[in-house]
């Protein structure tokens, strides 16, 4: 090995270590901070108050004082509100009609309108929830007054209004934070992408070397041992990277790791083994590193969207989830990982995913390595043929 080759080799491995550990750690910090604010609050809204009465002003004040919403614009007409929503200056609008207070007092149940822009469902759902909560609370207060007006005493009226209550509880994540929802999946994606980005080029380079070597030579065996070593190094670095990511989300972003840590590692190791199988397949498929790297770059979004993580499994067409899991192993890793860490799910519940991951490995490891070996053999035959022809051509000339 020349000095230049040695420098390139060292540079490549330094780059690989950076990709496998500090890079995914840096992205964990970045995404953790991006999703750091749990709530989507202070959503700008607009109001049109045609009534301008004490009651209408109280309603507007309630909206403005709520943590979730802020009255950003006072519009003069319905169309102005719609225009403000269309230009995304506000995401919701409240229209209080004329004679609102008078009609409330007379028991005519005046109609007000709450408009919500659902272009971005995350903002829209929050604006809707905050707004309806305020309006329902206000309604309850007025209901008591109406009942009192109809001759009920205040105790009875209060009892009637609060007669039927419902308590809604979000289990495992009361705040419904986006970070808890997505972070485990993002870590899975990062591990997937880094293994592909690091291991595939290494295997393609070694494939080229193996094509040139004699099957029975000592170099051939040395190269094979080298491949095993590299696979083990990449796997170990991935485990270290994943461990640091888990530590980071737990320590700095307060994400729960409720279940047994060991279960996370069982899933992680199976996933890494699965990824090794796929990477061998990719390395067999491509002769050059560049197109392989280019193709692998496309995989993050489709793998998370089709594995039942972002779009739930129960909403996918029948059978698709199982088919996807046979083609790509991410679903068998990130879905149970979220369940373990958010719900504290035990081993029994994640066994189907472990089985899925193992079946995947049982198919893809032999398939990947077999395909990789077959390509080496094929390239050897082609190279031999070309060399023979070259010799013939030299002989003829």
């Amino acid at each position, binding site marked *: 090995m020349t000095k230049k080759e040695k420098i390139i080799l060292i540079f490549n491995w330094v780059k690989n270590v950076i990709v496998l550990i500090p890079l995914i750690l840096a992205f964990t910090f970045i995404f953790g901070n991006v999703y750091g604010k749990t709530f989507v609050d202070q959503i700008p809204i607009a109001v049109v108050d045609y009534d301008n009465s004490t009651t209408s002003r109280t309603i507007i004040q309630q909206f403005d004082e709520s943590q979730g919403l802020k009255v950003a614009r006072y519009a003069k007409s319905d169309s102005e509100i719609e225009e403000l929503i269309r230009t995304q200056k506000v995401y919701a609008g409240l229209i209080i009609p004329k004679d609102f207070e008078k009609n409330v007092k007379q028991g005519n149940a005046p109609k007000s309108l709450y408009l919500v*822009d659902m272009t971005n469902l995350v903002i829209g759902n929050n604006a809707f929830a905050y707004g309806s909560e305020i309006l329902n609370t206000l309604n309850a207060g007025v209901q008591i007054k109406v009942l009192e007006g109809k001759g009920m005493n205040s105790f009875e009226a209060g009892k009637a209004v609060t007669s039927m209550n419902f308590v809604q509880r979000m289990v495992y994540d009361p705040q419904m934070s986006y970070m808890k929802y997505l972070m485990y999946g993002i870590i899975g994606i990062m591990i997937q992408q880094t293994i592909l980005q690091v291991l595939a080029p290494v295997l393609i380079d070694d494939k080229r070397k193996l094509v040139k070597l004699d099957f029975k030579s000592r170099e051939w065996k040395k190269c094979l041992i080298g491949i095993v070593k590299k696979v083990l190094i990449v796997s170990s670095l991935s485990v270290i990277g994943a461990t640091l990511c888990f530590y980071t989300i737990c320590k700095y972003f307060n994400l729960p790791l409720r279940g047994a840590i060991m279960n996370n590692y069982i899933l992680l190791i199976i996933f890494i083994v699965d990824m090794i199988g796929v990477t061998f397949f990719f390395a067999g498929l491509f002769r050059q590193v560049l197109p392989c790297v280019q193709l692998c770059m496309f995989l993050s979004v489709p793998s998370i969207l089709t594995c039942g993580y972002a779009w739930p499994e129960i909403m996918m067409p029948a059978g698709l989830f199982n088919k996807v899991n046979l083609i790509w192993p991410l679903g068998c890793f990130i879905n149970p990982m979220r369940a373990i860490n958010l719900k504290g799910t035990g081993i029994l519940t994640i066994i189907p995913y472990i089985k899925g991951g193992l079946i995947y490995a049982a198919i893809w490891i032999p398939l990947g390595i077999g395909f990789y070996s077959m390509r080496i053999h094929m390239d050897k035959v082609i190279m031999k043929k070309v060399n023979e022809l070259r010799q013939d051509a030299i002989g003829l000339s």
Partner: protein
Amino acid sequence: MNKLEYIILAKEWLAIFKKRLMLFTMLFAIPVSLSFLFGYTMEAKQIKHIPTVIIDRDNSTISRSITEEIRSNEIFDIVSYSQKDSDIKDYIEQGNAMAGVVIPEGFYKDLQAGKGPNILVLYDASQMSIASAAKSRMTEILLTIKIGYMQDVMEGKLDVLPSESIKAAQPMYFTYRLLNNPTKNYVNFLLPGMLIAIIQVGLIMIGVDRVKEKDEKFKYCIFKAICWGVLGAISIAATLWVQCHFFDMPYKGTLTGGILITIIYSMGVVSFGMLVMQLIPNKLLATQVSAVIVLPSSILGGYTFPLMAMPDFFKNLGSMLPYVHFAEPIRDLILKDISIKYIMGDIIWQLKFLVIVWIALAAVFFGKKLAKELWHKRKQSNKVVEKI
């Protein structure tokens, strides 16, 4: 021509074919086929049939009517009627249910006695999209039942006429109107941005790929950026057309505006890829760096989790991404009947970005050329000195 020459020629042609095939794959085959795959995966479009457990320990007329309301709603699928509270926990923990309703024993009796009994509703928040849809529909159902019950109370206790009781039960009648995506269609909300994020990766890598060492003139670089940018725009249009044509995604806004912003954005991203390649001459490294730069765009750009909820630093960073000024206007054009003036700000932003990238590209291109010439001259003069 002998056999060897044929083989060498065939090999060269095969290499060219493979290169073209890869470009076609990145630009058209992957985005369009993924558009079909995503459309098929998310064909349900809205969250429905959420597996739900009901524990009705009261078994009264009202508790049965609550159960019936939930059962007949398309959002919920009742997977179990149970009597044990722990069943909900088990079902949710094992992922067999995602919502649970507990109606306590003596509910109706307590209701009549005015004791304010509670109905407990539990949601599995580990799957946010489901929990959010379930909560919003369950609230509607329970509020409707509550208002119905209050009407009954008023009619019974206060001798109010049915036409009057509805007004008394809801003294302030608030109507809710959901604009632009009233059915809360998840596909229309999510897929445009996700597909654009995928194409963006392809565009930037094509930008990197298309820079050649032998490029002598800057105008060739610009010409390539324009040509590949237009092809990229066709790819974006084809990918979204698949959604519109096969999966009922609307396109309500201006077509001219949509085409204009798509072409400018596409050229900008391809040019940015070229700039990265000019800065990092190693193609493999440049490909990896450029892809890593744009891959987190859909997260940093606030396409789902909005920029307004991010810390200021990320808010500012996000607003500097071309993705933000393209994916969001495209979603707006899909969901809103808007004219070009509504996206003019974003078109101008994309135009500015394109010009800045071209200026930077020119600076790096001519800077490198100048450095090369100076290096060459220095080498020449060294040779002359050596000779002397």
